[in-house]
């Protein structure tokens, strides 16, 4: 084992640690999430893991050992494979924005990936102990998902048309009957498996599927390209994992850095137990999978147990936790006090804005080219509090001077049906309320700039994950007004540049939106914000500082 580890270390730093007079500390960099989500757009947590790891891999003050977890064991990655995992890996189109109800065609903006499959790269580690057919490898392999049949989209379209033809007095009832009928069909007739939680690993999620267009055969090659892309991703990922080398747990004086999917991809409980036995240290980030509701968790109720487990896992494993707001810090410390975890070392790093990556106007979905719209970025869950926006639009839409549409960007979370139903059952859905499931970062930046305002009515803590808070920064940097909830860490993330409203004050939101629609809100002066790279650098500084302290 020691020989393997030494070989791995040699590969990454081109020198043996014992040959180094400075004795830099070994930092084990967890890239499990990067391997698990390999090929997906690097937004949110994945972007955090990529950006920070890229800096750590080239950091001279530490010996960086990238690795992944599988079946509770650690497997070291070669430098080349680590860089592949954290590098740019555009999808078949590079950036794809997809409307939620699939009524609209895909917008293919780029070309197929130029990178060759990693299977052609030479093995640069001396031992390979896990056969390619091992269960762990199989578990990590992408299961190509069949393209969704166009008939589903057609059925949706027909259903929606049928609803619009109904007399107004029964239209809502018919709509609800159809929505619930669909759920019954999904859950009963198709025997849909019980949903796992939001923290599920990528293995349980459907692979990124490019939906076939409904009517325009011209887009058929896009689906083929998407399938090819998935196959290539699967091959590359399997090859990378096949080249991994099992290593032991770190020793005292060494360190683990992780920002992965807690509880699913990264076995934090095992790490915490190994840390107790072996004395290594660990640093991690507090991300917004651990919702603001964590603090309200009641150990007499099952509700919220998932998030409470994530929070205690984080507190138990990490010597230092990094978050991006004072509010997140104080809520985590309060949780720790309440449940007997002492006072954790939680540090705040400055949240930076997401890089815009230079998307041009051509990337704008054609549905939005001639609209005025306000933008709301989610994951679509109860914490985004979309209901207040849906209610506002339903109240304001009939007014002649209200020319704004609502554009929602974000994927639906596995565990929350209610907000999805709230949006889909709105009479404005598909007309004045548009929902894009997938939106790459560059297009999101473009949407932030083009929107009349960014809306954030949610309750959630600020974390390193899904990018909603980074969208606030992006909008502010672009001079786009921000209407946001006066809760949790949102005011801090808005740098004083947002209009803050009570999250459930329907009247206040409607008035603010009316003002927005009638141009009484003007563009604000752009705010100079730190970049995401700055944030990553701060994180790296913390890790290096911890590593050096441990070594000393």
């Amino acid at each position, binding site marked *: 084992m020691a020989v393997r580890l030494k070989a791995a270390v040699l590969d990454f730093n081109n020198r043996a640690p014992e040959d180094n007079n400075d004795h830099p500390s070994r930092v084990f960099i967890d890239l499990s999430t990067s391997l698990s989500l390999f090929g997906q757009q690097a937004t949110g947590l994945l972007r955090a893991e990529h950006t920070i790891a890229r800096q750590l891999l080239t950091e001279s003050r530490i010996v960086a050992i990238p690795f992944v977890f599988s079946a509770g064991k650690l497997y070291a990655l070669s430098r080349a494979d680590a860089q592949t995992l954290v590098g740019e890996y555009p999808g078949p189109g590079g950036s794809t924005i997809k409307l939620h109800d699939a009524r609209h065609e895909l917008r293919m903006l780029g070309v197929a990936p130029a990178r060759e499959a990693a299977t052609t790269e030479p093995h640069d580690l001396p031992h390979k102990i896990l056969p390619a057919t091992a269960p762990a490898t199989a578990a990590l392999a992408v299961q190509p998902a069949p393209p969704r049949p166009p008939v589903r989209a057609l059925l949706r379209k027909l259903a929606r048309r049928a609803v619009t033809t109904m007399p107004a007095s029964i239209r809502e009832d018919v709509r609800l009957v159809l929505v619930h009928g669909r759920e019954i069909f999904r859950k009963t007739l198709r025997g849909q498996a019980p949903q796992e939680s939001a923290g599920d690993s990528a293995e349980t999620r459907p692979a990124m599927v490019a939906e076939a267009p409904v009517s325009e055969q011209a887009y058929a090659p896009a689906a083929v390209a998407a399938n090819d892309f998935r196959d290539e991703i699967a091959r590359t990922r399997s090859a990378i994992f096949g080249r991994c080398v099992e290593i032991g747990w770190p020793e005292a004086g060494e360190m683990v850095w992780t920002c992965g999917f807690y509880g699913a991809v990264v076995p934090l409980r095992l790490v915490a137990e190994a840390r107790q036995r072996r004395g290594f240290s660990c640093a991690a980030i507090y991300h917004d999978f651990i919702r603001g509701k964590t603090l309200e968790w009641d150990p007499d109720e099952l509700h919220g147990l998932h998030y409470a*487990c994530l929070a205690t896992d984080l507190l138990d494993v990490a010597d230092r936790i990094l978050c991006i707001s004072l509010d997140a810090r104080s809520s985590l410390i309060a949780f720790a006090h309440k449940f007997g975890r002492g006072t954790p070392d939680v540090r705040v790093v400055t949240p930076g804005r997401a890089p815009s990556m230079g998307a041009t106007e051509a990337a704008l979905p054609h549905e939005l080219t001639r609209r005025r719209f306000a933008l709301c970025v989610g994951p679509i869950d109860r914490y985004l509090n979309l209901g207040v926006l849906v209610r506002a639009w339903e109240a304001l839409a009939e007014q002649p001077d209200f020319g704004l549409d609502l554009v929602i960007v974000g994927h639906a979370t596995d565990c929350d049906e209610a907000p999805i139903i709230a949006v889909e059952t709105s009479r404005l859905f598909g007309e004045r309320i548009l929902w894009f499931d997938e939106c790459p970062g560059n297009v999101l930046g473009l949407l932030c700039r083009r929107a009349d305002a960014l809306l954030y009515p949610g309750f959630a803590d600020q974390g390193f994950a899904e990018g909603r808070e980074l969208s606030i920064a992006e909008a502010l940097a672009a001079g786009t007004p921000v209407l946001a909830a006066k809760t949790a860490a949102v005011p801090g993330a808005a740098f004083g540049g947002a209009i803050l409203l009570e999250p459930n004050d329907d009247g206040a939101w409607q008035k603010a939106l009316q003002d927005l629609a009638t141009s009484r809100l003007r563009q604000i002066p752009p705010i100079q914000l730190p970049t995401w790279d700055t944030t990553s650098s701060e994180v790296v500084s913390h890790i290096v500082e911890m590593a050096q302290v441990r070594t000393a």
Partner: protein
Amino acid sequence: MTRLCTILQVGTHSTLSPIHGGQHRSHNIGRVLEKAGYTVRGIAACWRQRHDIVNDREAILDLALAGSWKGGVAGGLFGDYFHLVTVEESEKLRADFFRLAGAAQPDAVLLEHPWMWPLARLIPEVAAGRAPIIYNSQNVEAHLKHRLLRDLKLDAQGLSDAEALLPVMDAFEREVVANVDAVTACTAEDAHVFDTWGARRTVIAGNGSFRRPITAIRRPFPALLPGGCRYAFTVGSEHHPNVTGFENLVLPWLALLRPGQRVVVAGGMSDALRGRVAELGLSSTLDGRLVLLGRVNDLTLSALIENTACLMLPIEYGGGSNIKTAEALLSDRRIVASPASMRGFAAYRHLPGVTVASSPSEFGAAIRSALENGAPAPRRPESVEPLTWDAMLAPLVDLVGELTDSDRAEVSLVPSSASTAEQDPVVSPADGTATNQDDEVLPTRQA
């Protein structure tokens, strides 16, 4: 030599190779009666299982031979009653019942559960008044079924069927209680109910247990339980109260376990819990906190109990008394129990190392405290001595003696099974766990 007095046990489950709590009670009643010098014979109307033992002590009326089964009504809530229906409607099984009863020539009939009453009352010796009949209750069935109905998520049809059948069951049990010669109850509360129903005589003979043999196995599951790991343990069958009690009292606070601490579950209830945890989307979340072992053999069970920091008794309802509570009290482990699980054991709730907690947070706090402590419970063995099966069932043996007033063998003529039984895995109340079927001592109650 005169014929030994014969007791015929008639029930809806087998007793010679006990798995669940009801079987353990019946098994031990047979054992103590044999020890007291009676000949014990049994007729069990049930589905024969692979682990069942059939010999001249007990015959199984295998319901699989009947060809029809109506017990699925209302989610199977009344399945045990339909054992009777199946036998009654099958000419062969009915004939077999009376043939076996005739061959036994019972001096007394012990009705295990009330369900076989309509047939038992027709056994010639009973009908002629020569053989008294004792209803050995395990709980108040009607009350339990009312409570179970709340946990079974029945559809409208099932609910309607259940509501129609509940009064029938209630009347059925009342009829049994009022017409038998005596009723034995597990708790004073149950006895009071039977008294109000007009029982001629009621005797309390509660559930007990054995001291488990020391296995000296330090780490029963090194692969699943990391070295140095402390765990709280519970074992139970898939019986609804076991599953819902765990879900309500244990699952909610699992987030608060520290690294190196686990909650371990064995027995049929772990299979039910596995499904429930997946339904809740918590499978991966609870990985590293909750270990669901499934059914384990008796040696493993002993080792798990011997090594646990704390035994959990999270049952929230159910009739009778909880066999696992007696087993836990007889061990030297700390115990965290719900109030319902202490039913029938109220005198023991203030013993050292016993904590009774009613809310999840209290339950969790007590268990986490035990996990931090890790030391055995400071209980004196003599303080729980009355909890052995022999002691608990003594009133029942006396009752049978009074009612039969017949010859029985001298105890010395029959090798005592008590001393060996305490070492015998089959007689341990491993409710919900499989027993070691390869052990040749298993088939017999006596040596």
